[in-house]
Structure formats: structure tokens, C-alpha cells
């Protein structure tokens, strides 16, 4: 008789499965776990966490040099960029319609729809499409995109408690899912989920963005929010059970620890190494706290994080 009985947790709940991608194209399903991240001995993990490449509809203005050079000319067009991301092994494209921002070009809904079509021609990966985070422009461009990509089951965003009625209705009409963002608080995420579902959004059409903090910039709070959401879901709370999207790329590369080459202490070390670790460590920590869709920026990070996911998904035998 074994001396140590493996302390297995049997959970009542399960993470909601969400499928993205249209018919005849590549599809991705996330969620469905009945255990905490990568703890195969407790329950099932039917779908591995996926990696989304962050793509902008305009060349990025203030990205770190080592990211820009890694993507090269692909940055000049969203279609080329997405295509390269697909070649590099991304599971999804996270397309940010940055040019629709009133200060960045104020491009129209029609332009957004055109961009999305071009990206969809360049790759058959599923798409997450978000506006410039300016309420009125978000509504304009997302409505146009939802119409143009009817039936392609995009994830549209960003839904907040201010604008959820419009974007949710638009998404439902076009057969899409949404990404719902709440400011780093478990209860606020759950409240937004309830509000979206109360206006008729099916539970399998919602991805949560509980807000990401990068390493050194509130990562531990994001971690606890993710963990609390996931624990509640496994305890049977359907309103916290939606899959989690995490912006490890965007949040990490905003920080000077990732960007700064000069004028920083010697003890920070080589920026090329440090910046990648900043993104990868944020990603890994939050994957292990419950993230299912990890949005990354640097090709190398996509590669390394995928390798680690592989190793974590390889089923381990019992420890004892």
C-alpha cells in the first residue's frame, strides 16, 4: 500500500468551452478544464492554452527595437504580419485596430472591415479583433467588422461595463464571441459576465480579460484575480467559468524593463535577454494561474512559451 495518498481535488465545476474561427477555416477551442492549470492528476484539460500573436493595423510607433527587427517588414501590413505570425506557429491572431483611434488616424469602420478581410485572406487562423479603446470608435469599427465577418466567429472587443450592450448585440447578431474586460478585480469580471449574459449572450461566446499586470507592475494582483476566478469556476460558479485572455505581451513591453537599452542600471543586464524574459515570465506565471489565451508580442517568446506549454501538457505519471 502506498504510504502517501495523492491529494486529489475533485472539482464540481468546469471551465466553459469557447470555440473561435469560422467554418472551413482553422478553429480553436479553449476552456473545458476540470482542474487548475496543468494539474492533470486532478481532472481533465481537453484543450491546451493557446498563443495569440498581437498584430496592429498600422506599423507600431513605440515598440522596442528588438521586437520591430524580429518581425521585420511584416509590420508594414497587417496581412503580412498575420501571415508571418501563422508561419511562426501562432494559434490565433489578436488584431488591434489602432489606426481607428482619433489621434492615430481616425480610420473608419469601412477601413476596419477591409483590414479584417485582408487578414483573413492572409491566414486562416481565428481572429480576435479589438478597437482602439475609445468608446465611440470601438462601436463604429467593431460593428463594421462584425457585419463584414459574419459567421467567422471572431472574438470582438473590448467589451466593458460601459459599452457591453452595443458590442454584445453586434456580436450576437454576427455569430461572434466577445472579449470582456474588467479592471483587475474578480468581482468586476464576474459582474460584467453576468451583465453580458443577462442581455442574451450565450456563455460559450465570452472570453474574459480580467486585465493583466506585467512582472513588477501588478502581475501578482492579476495572478490572484485569475486564480480566484478559476477556483470559483471549479467550485461550480458558471459566471466565472469563462476562459481567460491575458495581455502578457502588451503589458510587458510597455515597461522600461523591457524597452530600455540605455540609461538603466548595469544590474539590469542585457536588454535583449531581459526584455524577452520579462514577457515570457509574465506569460508563464499567468498561464499557471489560469490564462487560456496568451497574447504575446515577440516571436521568440511565442516559441519559448509554446515549448513550455508542451512540457506542461505532457501528462505526467503519478508522483508517488
Amino acid at each position, binding site marked *: 500500500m502506498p504510504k502517501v495518498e495523492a491529494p486529489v481535488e475533485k472539482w464540481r465545476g468546469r471551465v466553459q468551452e469557447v470555440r473561435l474561427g469560422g467554418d472551413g477555416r482553422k478553429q480553436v477551442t479553449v476552456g473545458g478544464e476540470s482542474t487548475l492549470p496543468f494539474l492533470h492528476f486532478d481532472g481533465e484539460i481537453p484543450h491546451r492554452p493557446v498563443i495569440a500573436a498581437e498584430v496592429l493595423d498600422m506599423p507600431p510607433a513605440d515598440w522596442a527595437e528588438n521586437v520591430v527587427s524580429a518581425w521585420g517588414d511584416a509590420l508594414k501590413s497587417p496581412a503580412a504580419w498575420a501571415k508571418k505570425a501563422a508561419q511562426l506557429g501562432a494559434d490565433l491572431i489578436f488584431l488591434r485596430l489602432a489606426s481607428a483611434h482619433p489621434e492615430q488616424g481616425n480610420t473608419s469602420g469601412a477601413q476596419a472591415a477591409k483590414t479584417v478581410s485582408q487578414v483573413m485572406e492572409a491566414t486562416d487562423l481565428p481572429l480576435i479583433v479589438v478597437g482602439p479603446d475609445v468608446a465611440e470608435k470601438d462601436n463604429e469599427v467593431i460593428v463594421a467588422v462584425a457585419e463584414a465577418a459574419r459567421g467567422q466567429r471572431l472574438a470582438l472587443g473590448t467589451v466593458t461595463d460601459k459599452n457591453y450592450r452595443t458590442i454584445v448585440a453586434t456580436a450576437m447578431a454576427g455569430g461572434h464571441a466577445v472579449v470582456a474586460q474588467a479592471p483587475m478585480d474578480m468581482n*468586476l469580471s464576474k*459582474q460584467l459576465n453576468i*451583465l453580458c449574459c443577462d442581455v442574451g449572450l450565450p456563455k460559450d461566446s465570452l472570453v474574459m480579460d480580467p486585465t493583466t499586470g506585467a512582472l513588477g507592475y501588478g502581475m501578482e494582483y492579476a495572478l490572484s484575480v485569475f486564480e480566484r476566478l478559476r477556483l470559483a469556476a471549479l467550485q461550480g460558479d458558471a459566471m466565472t467559468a469563462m476562459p481567460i485572455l491575458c495581455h502578457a505581451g502588451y503589458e510587458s513591453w510597455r515597461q522600461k524593463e523591457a524597452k530600455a537599452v540605455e540609461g538603466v542600471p548595469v544590474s539590469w543586464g542585457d536588454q535583449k535577454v531581459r526584455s524577452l524574459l520579462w514577457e515570457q515570465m509574465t506569460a508563464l506565471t499567468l498561464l499557471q494561474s489560469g490564462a487560456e489565451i496568451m497574447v504575446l508580442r515577440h516571436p521568440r517568446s511565442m516559441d519559448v512559451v509554446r515549448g513550455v506549454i508542451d512540457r506542461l501538457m505532457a501528462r505526467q505519471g503519478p508522483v508517488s
Partner: protein
Amino acid sequence: MKTCRVSFQPGGAVVSVSEGTLLLDAAARAGILLDMPCGGQGRCGRCRVKVESGEVTGRENIHLSQEDMAQGWVLSCTARVVGDLAITVPPKVERDRAIVELPSARAAAQIALHWPRYPALRRAYLELTPPSLEDNAPDLERLRRGLRQEANLEGLELDVYQMRELGATLRQDNWRVSATLDASGPGNRLVDLRPGRIKGPLLGLAVDIGTTNVVAYLVNLDNGRLLGKASRMNRQVSCGEDVISRIVFSQREGGVDTLQNLAVDTINVLVKELAQAHGASPEDIGDMVMAGNTTMAHLFLGIPPRYIREEPYVPTATHFPVCTARDLGLAIHPRASVYCVPSVAAYVGGDITAGVLASKLYESDTLSLFLDVGTNGEIVLGNKDFMMTDACSAGPALEGAGMRCGMRAMPGAIEDVRISSLTLEPTIKVIGDVPAQGICGSGLISAVAEMLVTGVISKGGKIDLDYVLSRQPERPRARPGESGPEYVLVWAGEAGGGTDITLSEVDLENLVRVKAAIYAGIMVMAEKSGIPLDTVERVLIGGAFGQHINVEQAIQIGLLPDLPWDKFHFLGNTSAWGAYNILLSKHARSKVEELVAGMTYVELIADNSFMNEFTASLFLPHTDADRFPSVAHLLSR
């Protein structure tokens, strides 16, 4: 399908309807329009009729007691005809009473004296032997002797001013005098000495100084009877609506004096009113007990309260020296003693300790939750083994302040609202027989509960303009207003003030914050003690506010925990009630001192748990719907 005959009394109308018809449809066929503010959803209980004979289905409803059902009462919006029936429709007045039977109006307990009557203030009528050459003891000695011999009172204390008048007073009515003495201290302090026999009773005053309202009770100390009650808005409100604003104001030059005077002015107006109403003179009031929160006590006594506000939130004192009315400028007998009920901490004051005294929570095995909701919400959890307490800042919304259309619970205030689920038209109940002028705290709770249940607002407290427009295309009650969307409760034409009475999203947000703070305060206490909330056997609701709220609706918005209604008990103004007991019994006074020492104060901002619970509660009824199963059930329909 079977056809049934249904007859209605009074009037004797008879209609034939098919089996399964709702009683309300049958009544409509007979030309009887039943009052149905909830739109026939079985929520308001106002369409009750009595089945004199015959059978119906769908008798059960939360608005009917077992006894009601045994008598044949049903709600016509849920009961269906299954055979021939004889129905009695109660007159309209009766129907209104049906609303009043809702748990909201479960009669508040009467203020009662729990202790042997033993007031600190005593009066003795003395007929002293006049001095003579044989008995030439000094006047004071003679008075002492008289008190000792005729009234068994030792240890007379008096001051030099009283002594200056003593000789003349004693002689004025030939050595017949009435002496009023205060025995709250070690000796007997002379409060008043007058020639002859005083006819009127010995009077005392119990005062509850709330942040928003001040209530005074005039008490006959001779027999313990409550002679009258008067209340007014605290005049300090002009210097800030909540305690923090008052404290900020007190830090101005002369601020403490201004606030002290305003508190005293408020009380003096009440004293005048009460004295006039009862044919007494303010000077006849010889003793006073004051209960108020810690800041109110500081300001009433003129003690700067600023350190209450600053971390780590320490008041100057929780126990206050007994002083005299003259010290404070009170227009009662200048030598009347003024006792302030002691506080527990900066934000749990004498109003709460007085309330705990009145509630008798401390003498029972039963685990009780005591709530006093005013501008602050204070919570006590305990029984005879322990008591713990915390306090949260609620804001003045529940007292009708801080909202554009808010008002105190007085004639003209909307106190109950029902919204039809079908038409989204509200039916309101106004205090007094006057047109509506505004909405008070209980009306606000009621309105928000109804708006939630009928879908006018989302669980996030936001008005759904599109939905209201879809139901009311002609004249929608929800519209974009100056400060965001608003809902019109009363159109200008029907309102007393000539303008629309509205609730805006800002008002709603305000209420949601208030209820969230109170509910979070309750939850943190349960969490810190390790006592699950559902083991609470009684919820005792004190404070002036508690008398009018509807438990069902307060649960619907998540203000009160979702416990069975029979666990809720309304105690009325427990602060004043406690003060009344202390005024009438020295035993009660020593008990309250003992209670204070045994109450454990929980600081809510010491860690994250309050903030966490608060955010979870900023939703209707709550982010965790499982905590409000009865409401979740209602909303799922």
C-alpha cells in the same frame, strides 16, 4: 373545456369562465378592476380576494400566511378557477392594509422599560421646622437634616450660587420647599430648590443625536411614562452631511463651537416644542441622557473630533464626564445633569451601545445580528457570550439626503413603490394624504427593488432606456437626464412640488454603495469571527430608519442578508430607547458601562477583506447570486 360560474361580492356580479382562468381575468370580465401595481406577477400581494366557496389552484404565495390561506385569501393574479366560486372582494381600504401587513410594517416594538425604575433624579418635598433660639442650626444644616429625616437622602452637595439664595428660598413659603437632587454621582447634588410644593411631575429628556436627525423623548420620571416625542433635522447638516464633513468643518476656526451650538440649538427647539405640547416649562426638565455616535458626542460636548478622522482613528474619549445643561447651553434646567452614553470606538458610538442595551442582545443565547442604519451603518454580532461590532460609512441616502428628489420620511415622501412588470408604470404610496414631494429612504429601497425586478435597471444599477422605451413608446418613464439616464417616479402634474420626481443613475449608484457598505460590513464580521451568516438566529434592526423598510425589498437589493423573514425584528429607535432606559434606571446606566467594556471592535480597513466584500456587493443583489437564492429565483423569471 369545463365552464365555471364565478360570483363576486359585494355587487353580486356573476360571470362564466373556462376552467383555468386567472381570477383576475374573471374579475375583469365582471367589471371589477383589482389593484395590481406589480402587473399581476404575484409580487405585491395587493390583489388579494377571499374565496368563500369553491376551489382554486395556485393558492400559495409568499404574501399570504398560513392563516390567510386557511381563511380563503388568495391572490387573484396567481389563483386559477377550477370550479364554481363565490368571491368576496375586500373594500379598497382593506386592500391597502394588505400592503401594510408586509414584513416592512411588522410593528416596531414599543419603547419599554426593561429595568426597575430607579431614576438618578429625585424630588423631595420638605416641611422643615423653622429655626428658633433653641434650634438655631444654620439653614444648610436644617435642609440636610430635613432631607435625611424626611426623605432619607444623605450627602447633599450644592455650590456657592445656590447657597447665596438658600436663606431666602427656604423662608419664602415658610420653610416648605421642594428639592430636586441628582444621585447619579456619589452624593446627592442639588439641582433645584424651590419654595412650596411643585405640582407638575419630575421630567427628564432622552435624546438621540443622529448625524441627520435628532429625536427627543420627554419622560415623566415619577412614573416612567413617555410623554411625547419630537424630532428635527440636525442643524449641523448645514455644515456637512456626514460625520467626516462635520469633522472637516470642525477644523475651521471656530468650527467646533459652531457645530456645538447647532447641536444644542436643535435640541433646544425640540425642548421648546415638547414643553409647550405638555404644558411644562423647559426648566422642569432636570435630567438628560444623550446617545449619539462618537463624533456627535464630541461635537455636542465641544470636544474637537479631528483625530477620529485621521488614521489610526482614535477619539479623544469613549467615556464622557457628566456635565450640566448650563455648561452646554441647553435650555432645560441649567443644573440638570447631562449624561452621554459611552462609545466603543471612533465609529461605534453611544447610539449603538444604547441600542444594544435596548435590544437585550447581550442576555440571550440566541446568536443575533443587530443593525443600526443611519448615515453610518453599525453592526453588532453576538449573544450573551460575546459581542463584536464594526461600522461602515453609508452616507445619507437612506435618510433621504444627498439625492435630488430625496427627503426625510415625513408627509409627502414616497415610502413604497410598485412597478408593473407589464406596463412599467409605478404605483406609489405617500406618507400622509398629500401629493408626493420626494422620496425617502424606504421609498428608495422599494423603488430600486422594483426597478430591478421589472428589468428597468440592470443588475449593475444602470437604467435600460431601450427596454423602457419598448414598453412605453408613448411616454417613457426612463429618459436621458442632466446627470445620465433617469426614471420618472411621479410626473410633474401629479407631484406636490410641480416638477418631476425622478431617480437618476447617480442616485441609484449612491444607494448601491450604501447597501454594499452595510452588507459588506455584515459579511466581514461573519468572516472575521468564523461564524457563518446563516447561523444567525435573529436580525434586530434598530435606528429610526428600520421602522419603515420592507424586508423583502431590502433583500432584493442586497441590503439585508437573504434569511427567512421571520428572523427579522424591527426594534424602532433603539438609541433613544436605550437612552430612555438609562434616564429611568441607574441599573441600566451601570449595565451600559459594562457592555461597552465587553464589545470587541473590528476595524474594517485593517486589511483587504472589506474592500473585497464591498466590490462584490456593488451589484444587485450581489455578485454572488447564490447568497440571495430568493432573489435569484425571482430574477430568473
